[in-house]
């Protein structure tokens, strides 16, 4: 794996919202073919990291650097990042009343294709493209005619996120608590979807609260985030340890100066 291309390189990243520092120096390197999990309790900065990587305007980057395929990611607008292959599956996917899911998916798909120098796809051909991807998340075609996420259940929203990821084929997929609030069937569907999208050329970063997700998606790396920094990195066993002992033992270790 050592020879794989570095997709994402984060060094000393600090960021704040409304003047309050949240990220206090994050270091993370993600290579092609890898799956990373970032765990941590609420408020540790996990979700903020995902939003900063995607370019959410509410956060101000105060220091550090982020390279995506060697290019400065922080210079780019959110839509440029998306077109270059950064995909964020939202923790709370937004409802966009009046905009049909199908139109939205096509606009998004074509924006990515244009960036890749490919021809845009018309409405007719797009039906075929999307049809194929629906199977990935076991979604019914009827979803396509509804407004984006409007009136969707929690599980449907999350599946819609994975459908979008399958369609856009990003080189970096960041899944922000995609597993939270899902029942076991939905969790399985979503996980299988992620596994189908993941391959040796792309990378996935799973942000999660619960070890449960990792029963279905096997990360090569597990990071523990604490107070705006990644304080511990290990293999899958670290996730099990966290699940078993909770996050308190990290506090204790920190207190003891071990971590």
């Amino acid at each position: 794996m050592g020879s794989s291309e570095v997709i994402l390189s984060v060094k000393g990243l600090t960021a704040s919202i409304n003047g309050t520092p949240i990220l206090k120096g994050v270091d993370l390197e993600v290579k092609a073919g890898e799956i990373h999990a970032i765990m941590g309790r609420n408020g540790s900065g996990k979700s903020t990291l995902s939003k900063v990587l995607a370019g959410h305007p509410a956060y101000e980057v105060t220091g550090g650097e982020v390279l995506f395929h060697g290019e400065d990611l922080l210079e780019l607008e959110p839509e440029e990042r998306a077109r270059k292959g950064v995909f964020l599956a939202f923790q709370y996917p937004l409802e966009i009343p009046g905009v049909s899911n199908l139109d939205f998916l096509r606009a998004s798909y074509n924006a990515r294709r244009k960036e890749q120098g490919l021809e845009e796809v018309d409405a007719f051909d797009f039906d075929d493209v999307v049809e194929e991807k629906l199977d990935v998340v076991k979604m019914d075609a009827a979803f396509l005619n509804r407004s984006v996420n409007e009136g969707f259940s929690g599980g449907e929203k999350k599946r819609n996120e994975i459908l979008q990821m399958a369609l856009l084929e990003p080189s970096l997929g960041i899944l922000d608590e995609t597993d939270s609030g899902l029942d076991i069937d939905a969790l399985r569907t979503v996980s299988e979807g992620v596994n189908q999208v993941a391959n040796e050329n792309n990378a996935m970063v799973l942000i999660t609260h619960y070890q449960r997700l990792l029963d279905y998606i096997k990360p090569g790396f597990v990071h523990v985030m604490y107070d705006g920094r990644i304080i511990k990195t290990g293999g899958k066993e670290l996730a099990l340890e966290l699940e078993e002992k909770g996050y308190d033992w990290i506090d204790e270790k920190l207190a003891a100066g071990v971590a």
Partner: protein
Amino acid sequence: MSASVQTLVNQPYKYGFVTDIETVKIPKGLNEEVVRLISAKKEEPEFMLDFRLKAYRKWLTMAEPDWAALGYPEIDYQDIVYYSAPKAQEKKQSLDEVDPALLETFEKLGLPLSEQKRLTNVAVDAVFDSVSIATTFRADLLKHGVVFCSISEAVKEYPELVQKYLGSVVPVGDNYFSALNAAVFSDGSFVYIPKGVKCPMELSTYFRINSADTGQFERTLIIAEDDSQVSYLEGCTAPMFDTNQLHAAVVELVALENADIKYSTVQNWYAGDENGVGGIYNFVTKRGLCKGKNSKISWTQVETGSAITWKYPGCVLVGDNSVGEFYSVALTNNCQEADTGTKMVHVGKNTRSTIISKGISAGRSSNSYRGLVKIGPNAEGARNYSQCDSMLIGDNAAANTFPYIQVQNPGAKVEHEASTSKIGEDQLFYLMQRGISMEDAVSMMISGFCKDVFNQLPMEFAVEADKLLSLKLEGAVG
């Protein structure tokens, strides 16, 4: 980011030019002599002069309404020219004889009138300041028995129809502005669809205000006989002046048994500049009478212009099983103020009405929905559904909803829903994270918000309306 959304909605007005043309104007001011003069200039029959005088005398006893959520300086009714026409305004038999400057004006507005360039499936009546200058396809329509001409011509050629229906839906004393219109109206369109005829093409009137001190008072009358059908569209633009012009129109629709009238408006009068200087004061009374059984009147409006809009197109549902519809998109920006909505008056049994209103407010503008749904004591089985949604862009704009519901029949069912939403940072970020640019994201959300209304417009104009809103939203991303 909201600041940049704001810049998206600021777009220069592209119809703001003035046509340099010699006009005949009467002096400013209003009195009984002026009313007589207008009638005389138009060589009207006696009944029209009586109609005007009755309205004028009524108007004198009335006071300007002040209940709307609008604020504007007092209008000096003596400082307005009540009649202005391009010189040699005599209606030409052929378009070749129309002043080329006028033809050029309408061409510039995207509305070529000449034989070669005109739209093939739409008949157009072009009204410039106070008079109709040309009506296309008039003869072709007449072959089907459809009368489409200026109301001045109708007064002369179809006096019995005009006398029978003029003021029958909007009585002269209905309100302050309709009384004023009845006294001084100069032109407008007249449509008559005979029994059993489905009008073979879209009819449309294009209103152009050109002079700075002239009020525009047009009057439209559409009569659809039993089993007939017509779709009509009006468009409006005006030059940019730093003074305000008064526009007080009246539209009356009469639908007899099984008749179907669809009336669409794309209103883009000059709205004034970003500081609220200039712009049209638009006080309009529009009402349709579903007189016959199973008749239907549908109003669709896209209101993007005017400094002040005061307008409540309504339906009086007298015939049993008759249907009234109102679909509206009102966009206000900068200092614009709109107080608009509808009135659905259910008189007959099993009458149905639908109201879909979408208000978008940006800048420091104020956008109010005001609607009345009235179910009379005999309107057994009447149904109304109203939905009024507001979208706010920026936090200086106001969105108000004032529905009035009055029900006197227990067999009726009335439902009203309203909601507010916004184009917010988070929705935009979500769309942008999927690679969609901010302009496209905003445009998608606006079109989505207005979809229910645009779907009601005749196809040719749905595209126009979407473009119009997009134009209003075009601009640099900040």
